[in-house]
């Protein structure tokens, strides 16, 4: 019981938008597709929806191919980045629109629309026009319209990206309960924000340059990103990647940063690698092999991200809490060697060794 896409490919004007994408999206689960802008996420959704022709590939749902069905027969619901609603219909009628299309009984339509509107917190807004409510509310209407259908496939294309910071956080928190009603649907959710993907997804698909880089459970992808690109995409701030090698004396990172090789890495062939370490696993330390100046400190809500440029390498570290660290402050950075990821030192940068998984849900 799932949506299967196989070898989807799409090239337009010489630019590959999709390069052989294959994946399975189980019903009743929420899959987050994460990737940078222009990685092919939106194209993938449009192909599934039937809004975009493909050069080749197969689409099937529960074993039945539907690639030849026109969009209006696919039973796919979609929520866009922009707050797209029918401007000429009231909120109520917007949500009722797909149901009326299905020729459901009037009372049934009423019931379901009211139910969904109250789920998204808009029970009192039924009579308003979309233009008369705030952006966040408009996006809730769009969500409600998608939810009310209980469609086979529910696609969400970065639905939160255009919302104010706090609203985004709030709506994100509600997602789990919102989608609890869609137990039979395939739900696919595009995002560029790893935290968002991790928090709400049952499965994560990482896309990079038109291809699928990794599919897996959120924790698995987080703990063992298969390549440098995935490691960067799934971490925010992106994982620190340092060129280096393993030799007889242990690890050599960046410009002469020496670390002892932990047992896990000591057995690896002695050659060049790329090493990765999460910003959150670096910590300031007085006695540290890497010393540098803070070039820039970002303070997010509750964390501080420090960009440190040292003679031996530049790293980004993330600290809990809020610190004001003026640029130029010199600090030492402790690099936990046992938390290092090791990747191939080539274009693709495949994962060779990941540190032990920790915690998680």
């Amino acid at each position, binding site marked *: 019981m799932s949506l299967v896409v196989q070898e989807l490919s799409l090239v337009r004007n010489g630019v590959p938008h999709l390069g052989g994408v294959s994946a399975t999206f189980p019903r009743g689960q929420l899959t987050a597709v994460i990737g940078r802008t222009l990685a092919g996420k939106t194209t993938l959704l449009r192909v599934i*929806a*039937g*809004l975009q022709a493909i050069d080749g590939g197969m689409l099937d749902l529960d074993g039945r191919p539907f690639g030849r069905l*026109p*969009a*209006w*027969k*696919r*039973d*796919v*619901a*979609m929520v*866009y980045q*922009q707050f*797209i609603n*029918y*401007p*000429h219909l009231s909120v109520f009628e917007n949500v009722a*629109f*797909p149901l009326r*299309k*299905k020729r459901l009984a009037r009372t049934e339509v009423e019931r379901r629309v009211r139910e969904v509107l109250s789920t998204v917190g808009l029970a009192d807004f039924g009579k308003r026009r979309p233009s008369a409510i705030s952006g966040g509310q408009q996006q809730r209407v769009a969500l409600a*319209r998608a939810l009310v*259908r209980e469609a086979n496939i529910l696609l969400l294309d970065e639905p939160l990206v255009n919302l104010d910071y706090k609203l985004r956080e709030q709506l994100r928190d509600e997602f789990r309960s919102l989608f609890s009603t869609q137990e039979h649907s395939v739900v696919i959710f595009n995002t560029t924000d790893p935290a968002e993907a991790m928090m709400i997804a049952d499965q994560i698909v990482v896309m990079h340059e038109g291809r699928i880089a990794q599919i897996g459970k959120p924790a698995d992808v987080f703990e063992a990103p298969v390549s440098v690109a995935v490691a960067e995409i799934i971490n925010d701030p992106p994982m620190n990647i340092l060129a280096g090698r393993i030799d007889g004396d242990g690890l050599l990172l960046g410009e002469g940063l020496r670390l002892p090789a932990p047992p896990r890495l000591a057995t690896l062939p002695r050659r060049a690698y790329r090493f990765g370490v999460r910003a959150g696993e670096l910590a300031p330390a007085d006695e540290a092999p890497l010393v540098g100046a803070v070039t820039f400190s970002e303070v997010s809500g509750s964390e501080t991200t420090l960009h440190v440029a040292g003679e031996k390498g530049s790293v980004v570290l993330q600290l809990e809490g809020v610190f004001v660290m003026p640029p130029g402050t010199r600090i030492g950075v402790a690099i936990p060697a046992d938390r290092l990821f090791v990747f191939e030192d080539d274009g693709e940068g495949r994962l060779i060794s990941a540190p032990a998984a920790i915690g998680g849900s």
Partner: protein
Amino acid sequence: MMPRFYSALKYAAVLIWSAFVLAPFMWALTTSFKTANGVTGGPTYLPWIQYKPSLHGWESLFGGAGGIDIVQPYIDSIIVTVGASIISIVLGTLAAYGLSRFQYRAGFVKNSDIVFFFISQRIMPPIVLAIPFFLMLQFLGLLDTKTGLIIVYIALLLPIAVWIMVDFFDGVPRAVDEMAMLDGCTPFEAFFKVVLPNSLPGILVALMFCLIFGWNDFFFAFTLTFTDTQLLPVAIVALNSSVTPWWSLSASALISVAPLVLIAFFVERLLSRGTLAGAIR
């Protein structure tokens, strides 16, 4: 000091242009109350003071002596203009929607070529088409009929409708129509249930342009009718002979202009609300 000077300059420019725009109307207004004597003695402007006003020019338009009856032409003009405009809008809107949303390809012909083909119809001077149209309508038995004129006007107005509506639809996000299709509408249903209700501003603008160009056409109305059907400009130009009754002509000019001046108010509303901006870019 300087801003005040600039502002004075600005108002001066606006007022001068206003005067230029208004001049023919004011002249026509005063002339419409003249008789031959008010005209032949050199320009006069003020009734009672410079000439003895008379309602002759106005009476002549409504069956009075020395004029033409413009009531029937008025009605005919409205029927033909509105009829042709509406059909053009319907066909033009559909075609424009297609051209805006789909990719057409036939040999080397692409969307932009089709749009150009539509617009290029406006390049043809009416004279080129007069006789062929005449023969065509003759063949169809539609000479001297409103239907015949409507058909011809469609050829004139459709390009305008397509031009405006393509621009308009290009500016409307596709997401709304896509969403309707995902909600189970065929492209037709999506168009009629969702796109159309939201395209009213564009359609109004296109309709307005069609009305203006249709209402003001003279040449086809002139060549393709005999006696049964007469449109307003043709009826009024019948006053422009070697001996022009300036008074009747002025009165009829003012009367023919009146309905479209109402459109000017309407256009301004669209304009000031920014609706036009979306439709013409």
